[in-house]
């Protein structure tokens, strides 16, 4: 059964590889983008398709499969339409530096360490599947429970059932729940191997997307080391196969940041905007934090694009019309956003006041309470400080701090717009999470203890990509004045 989600990922990789068959994409580049986006397509399309079919009151495998096929067909049409209308660009994505002997040796050593990490991680995966087949607490209480409701109940009863649930966060979006349910229904069994296999797919996707993001925003030499750092961080091992939403969220944030960083860096040709939008639209369909991430990414991208338009003019903006690209981007985001809107407006029960970050009382007092801010800051420092947080984070945060000391001065909108986007997104998200903790309706110490490490996990890959993108010699973006 573990093969089913992995087969979905393989099929999505093949489909994306075909779609990215545009002028200027080398085979390697196409494969990297296909691998980076495959889990989003592989689990996002069935999730939206399953939910939309159920929302229309239709049971069975065929309706959700047809809905998913329709989403894929629409994506195909949009990608093909873009191809027909695109100026034929023949510029490669970037000018690759000719690797010297030292660079080759470093790359080989990094690849060896990556292979060791992958072997160790596969051992961890086997341990999880044997020892904790149902995943951690939240997997049973929230994510897989939602999948069981979706797969076991008739479609017409689902609004009533979700409305009647009072515990286990029935208001949480359903990317994972509906994705698992779709595969359970297809397999004809509620196997724990499906959510586990999805965890593995998301982990592979995070590695591929992070690798590509560092290549896109910085130096190819530092792409594998960035993956090494994230995947040797104990917190990643703790949550990767726990069947919870945090690693998928971290993955989608990196995958959604990819085309935005590529655009800021002036990488040509651009990936199809409809696919870029599709990946971004899935972020809020995972969890509320995803909505914050999507809004932060797009907001900062637009801000950097606006202030950096002079530079973009000099390096050559892609020739396609911005309004058309924005429209295709929005069209791509539609499946995720539409699913979220329909779920929230019709099925999801309201968040009780006692659990609401906005409606529960005393928000102004909490906001002005210095003690709460101090506790949030102290808990965060305890996590990132190797002296107190090494059990969960190793020395990862410390190394990132060293990286910022080394290359922080390179953080300039003109020199490294991609890294600026990633670093500022990570910073804004950290600030938003800190604010959320201060406004928390729960006991603050308990809430920090139970959630802070998972929220930091959302930020770690983005910050890692930012720091590693600043390192090394940057690949030179192709420009119309300097074709290669």
């Amino acid at each position, binding site marked *: 059964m573990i093969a089913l989600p992995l087969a979905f990922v393989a099929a999505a990789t093949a489909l994306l590889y075909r779609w990215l068959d545009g002028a200027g994409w080398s085979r390697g580049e196409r494969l990297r983008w296909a691998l980076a986006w495959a889990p989003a397509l592989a689990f996002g399309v069935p999730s939206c398709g399953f939910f939309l079919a159920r929302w229309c009151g239709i049971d069975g495998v065929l309706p959700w499969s047809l809905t998913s096929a329709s989403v894929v067909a629409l994506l195909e049409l949009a990608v093909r339409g873009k191809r027909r209308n695109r100026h034929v660009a023949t510029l490669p994505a970037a000018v690759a530096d000719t690797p010297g002997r030292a660079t080759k040796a470093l790359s080989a050593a990094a690849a060896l360490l990556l292979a060791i990490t992958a072997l160790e991680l596969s051992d961890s995966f086997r*341990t999880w599947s044997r020892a904790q087949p149902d995943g951690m607490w939240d997997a049973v*209480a929230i994510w897989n429970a939602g999948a069981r409701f979706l797969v076991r109940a008739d479609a017409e009863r689902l609004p009533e059932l979700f409305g009647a649930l009072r515990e286990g966060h029935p208001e949480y979006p359903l990317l994972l729940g509906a994705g698992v349910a779709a595969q359970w229904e297809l397999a004809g069994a509620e196997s724990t191997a499906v959510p586990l296999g999805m965890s593995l797919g998301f982990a592979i996707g995070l590695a591929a997307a992070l690798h590509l993001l560092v290549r896109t925003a910085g130096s190819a030499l530092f792409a594998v080391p960035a993956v090494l750092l994230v995947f040797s961080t104990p917190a990643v091992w*703790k949550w990767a196969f726990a069947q919870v939403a945090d690693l998928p969220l971290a993955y989608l944030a990196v995958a959604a940041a990819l085309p935005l960083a590529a655009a800021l860096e002036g990488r040509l040709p651009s990936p199809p905007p409809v696919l870029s939008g599709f990946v971004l639209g899935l972020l809020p369909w995972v969890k509320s934090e995803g909505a914050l991430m999507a809004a932060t990414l797009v907001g900062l991208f637009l801000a950097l694009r606006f202030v950096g338009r002079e530079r973009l003019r000099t390096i050559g903006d892609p020739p396609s019309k911005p309004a058309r690209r924005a429209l295709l981007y929005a069209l791509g985001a539609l499946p995720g956003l539409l699913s979220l809107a329909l779920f929230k407006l019709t099925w999801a029960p309201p968040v009780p006041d006692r659990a609401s970050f906005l409606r529960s009382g005393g928000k102004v007092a909490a906001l002005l309470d210095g003690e709460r801010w101090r506790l949030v800051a102290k808990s965060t420092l305890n996590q990132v400080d190797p002296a107190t947080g090494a*059990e969960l984070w190793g020395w990862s945060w410390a190394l990132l701090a060293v990286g910022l000391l080394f290359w922080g001065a390179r953080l300039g909108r003109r020199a490294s717009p991609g890294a600026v986007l990633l670093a500022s997104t990570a910073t804004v998200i950290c600030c938003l999470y800190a604010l959320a903790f201060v406004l928390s309706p729960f006991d603050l110490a308990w809430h920090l203890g139970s959630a802070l490490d998972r929220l930091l996990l959302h930020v770690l890959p983005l910050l890692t990509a930012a720091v590693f993108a600043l390192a090394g010699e940057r690949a030179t973006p192709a420009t119309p004045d300097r074709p290669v």
Partner: protein
Amino acid sequence: MRDLVFLALLLPVWVVGLQRSERITGAISGMAPFFAEDLARFDRVRPSVATSVRAYLFLDPELRRAYGQRLFSAQYSLAPTVLSLAFDVREVVGGQWSGQPRFVLCDFDDAGRRRAALSALEAESRRRNLLSEVVLEDGALTLVRLSERVSP
């Protein structure tokens, strides 16, 4: 030069990270599966309540501050039956009756408290002119079916 220093620093960070990560894997390996015992208990009850839209999970009031594991494992096993949590017989028996029978899962670890709770449930049912019938007993778990008496 900074690049090389940074990559050199990555090596011990990677080693320490993997060591700590293996410890986490070891801990996971030695840990009893989350909810496993409860999941198995509630799975056995599922056929009896599968047709019911709603059911009550009646727990020992001692668990009022730590009911999560019982509730979530029961809900996971018994989905799509929606469980309402109760710590008092009046919550279980009260409210509107739709003519449908009502299933109550009494889950009390302590045998004495369980007997007392079941007696209280039966007494309250009788007081409200309801029929109370034990459907299944499985260790600490007792499934009770409440229904309205049909007038002759």
